[in-house]
């Protein structure tokens, strides 16, 4: 019922300098998003580059400060943490990023990489206890005990991602922020890591915030899905709703691009610059169904049915139009 992670009207604005004498313009990277992630579930954020998904993740991780809005994790607003709380907060939440190679020090052996957070947070009384914890973690992520003695460059991409996951789990976090965790990996390895992440979630009751551009990955992992476009949600709903009853033309385009259907027509154009987002509905420049109203009036994110929000004036009739198109 109660959300482990709760985001309210989150915004992030970057000033972008246009030269020495000109006034800086404001880039709205995240333009007011809200969502809740109940404990033990996965919220999938899907969108293309410039959609604001990574900026959102950074703010949730405390690596970037929101311009406005609220992020509540485990009942506490993270902006109000004092120093001690912030230190403890780092145990609660851990990131797993796209490129495990850049996230792991090439000079450290795997056992030291996994051990480091344990040393910093001093939660194990002895070296022996820490070594046992490292051995347990290696096993939990499916690496052989011998992996402890190796360096990241001696490992494959999939093994390195396992090491990164082991390190993320070292401090018994409750929330993992997974930012494109498998996009750098080959297909057969992707499946291994996705299965591992789901197993760990079941075993440890973890909550995931998953970021991916790949709707198939989002669909496999998520409980709830939010589709981001230019820093706004265009559609939010349960995985089942988004995959089988999506109503926003952008969600439909993403789904078409991930399906083997040969005849799915590509959406035209590219993501507009977030410096000058289109008037009205931000998607109207690329939308095959756009009308005058879309060019003038921005649609609000409204509830179509329980747990299904869509920001499209024509959400009720869009599927009919898609079928006729």
């Amino acid at each position, binding site marked *: 019922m109660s959300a482990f992670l709760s985001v309210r009207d989150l915004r992030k604005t970057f000033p972008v300098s246009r030269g020495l004498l000109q006034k800086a313009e404001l880039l709205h990277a995240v333009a007011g998003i809200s969502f809740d992630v109940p404990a033990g579930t996965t919220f999938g954020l899907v969108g293309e580059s410039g959609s604001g998904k990574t900026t959102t993740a950074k703010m949730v991780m405390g690596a970037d400060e929101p311009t406005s809005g609220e992020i509540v994790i485990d009942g506490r607003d993270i902006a109000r943490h004092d120093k001690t709380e912030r230190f403890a907060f780092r145990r609660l939440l851990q990131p797993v990023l796209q490129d495990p190679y850049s996230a792991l020090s090439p000079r450290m052996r795997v056992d030291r990489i996994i051990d480091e957070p344990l040393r910093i947070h001093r939660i194990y009384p002895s070296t022996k206890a820490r070594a046992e914890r490292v051995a347990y973690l290696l096993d939990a992520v499916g690496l052989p005990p011998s992996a402890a003695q190796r360096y990241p460059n001696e490992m494959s991409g999939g093994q390195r991602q396992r090491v990164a996951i082991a390190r993320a789990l070292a401090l018994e976090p409750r929330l993992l922020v997974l930012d494109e965790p498998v996009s750098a990996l080959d297909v057969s390895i992707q499946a291994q890591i996705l299965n591992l992440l789901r197993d760990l979630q079941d075993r440890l009751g973890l909550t995931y915030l998953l970021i991916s551009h790949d709707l198939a990955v989002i669909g496999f992992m998520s409980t709830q899905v939010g589709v981001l476009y230019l820093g706004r949600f265009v559609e939010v709903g349960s995985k089942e709703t988004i995959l089988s009853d999506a109503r926003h033309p952008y969600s439909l385009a993403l789904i078409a691009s991930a399906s083997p259907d*040969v005849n799915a027509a590509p959406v035209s154009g590219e993501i507009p610059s977030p410096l000058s987002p289109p008037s009205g509905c931000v998607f109207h420049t690329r939308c095959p169904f756009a009308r005058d109203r879309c060019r003038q009036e921005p649609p609000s994110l409204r509830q179509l049915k329980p747990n299904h929000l869509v920001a499209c004036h024509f959400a009720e009739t869009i599927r009919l139009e898609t079928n006729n198109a």
Partner: protein
Amino acid sequence: MSDLLRVENLTTWLATESGIVTAVDDVSFSVRAGRTLALVGESGSGKSMTCSSIMRLLPGNGRIAGGRVLFEGEDLLAKSPAGMEAIRGRKIGMIVQDPMTSLNPLLDVEDQVGEVFKYHLGDRSRRLRRPKVVDVLSRVHIPAAEKRLGSYPHEFSGGMRQRVAIALNIACAPKLLIADEPTTALDVTVQQQILALLRELQRGTGMAIILVTHDLHTVQRFCDEVAIMYAGRIVEQGPVSEIFARPAHPYTQGLLRALPQLGSQEERLPLIPGQPPSLSSLPPGCRFAPRCPRATDLCRTEYPDWMATSGETRRSACWYADEVLG
């Protein structure tokens, strides 16, 4: 019969820290005019090396050790360096994952594309080249092409840059376009646009395309034939529709199953256990045997011969191809 390109027993060596490895091992396939062949495989499977070998653009530590690359009946491997120069960019185009690496950052688009006409077609006058440049940029759907002539590569988005790279490579109406992961670095909606553009150009000109990719959805949507590579060798090849419907190699089967499907309610993805072997320590026998659920002693000792499955059109390098096919 009417193969535009026929690669026969191509073998390429690569000198690495752990000795000489065979990056491309006895690879054979052919492409007909107007058709698209997908070369699929995971990293290190040899798909890009195969393309570099065809283009004779191997890195310094690479060497073609054997085989033939017959293009319009002529063996490219027997050509002089000057002879290859006349073919690259004119009869065979090549686009790569990151267009920034194939575009000169110091040249504007007009000079960039114009250079191709100058070099291959001897168009010396910049003024006379201009309409040709505008024409080819419009063919790749760069909006307001005549206004973008003075733009530099960094001023374009990733998708537009890839369009410029495609324009460069189709300017001389090549017979064959090699596209090495052309959409991997692009956003999904833009990926679809680039693939649609390639298909449109192919329909207009009848050029053949070799598409290197690791994305099986793209193969299914876009390609006619597919060759699946594993550890330097082709393990299965044939028409896309047949292979996707009924794979005849356990590796292909595993790959297709491991792909998350939209809308499926599976709790787990069926896995291929383990990881591809290192080229410097290949297992004896079938290279997939250590990961294969069907492997027998035969597989572990002897590399499988080609098994023809369902007639002449497809083949699989698996001792048990017929059983896999079911």
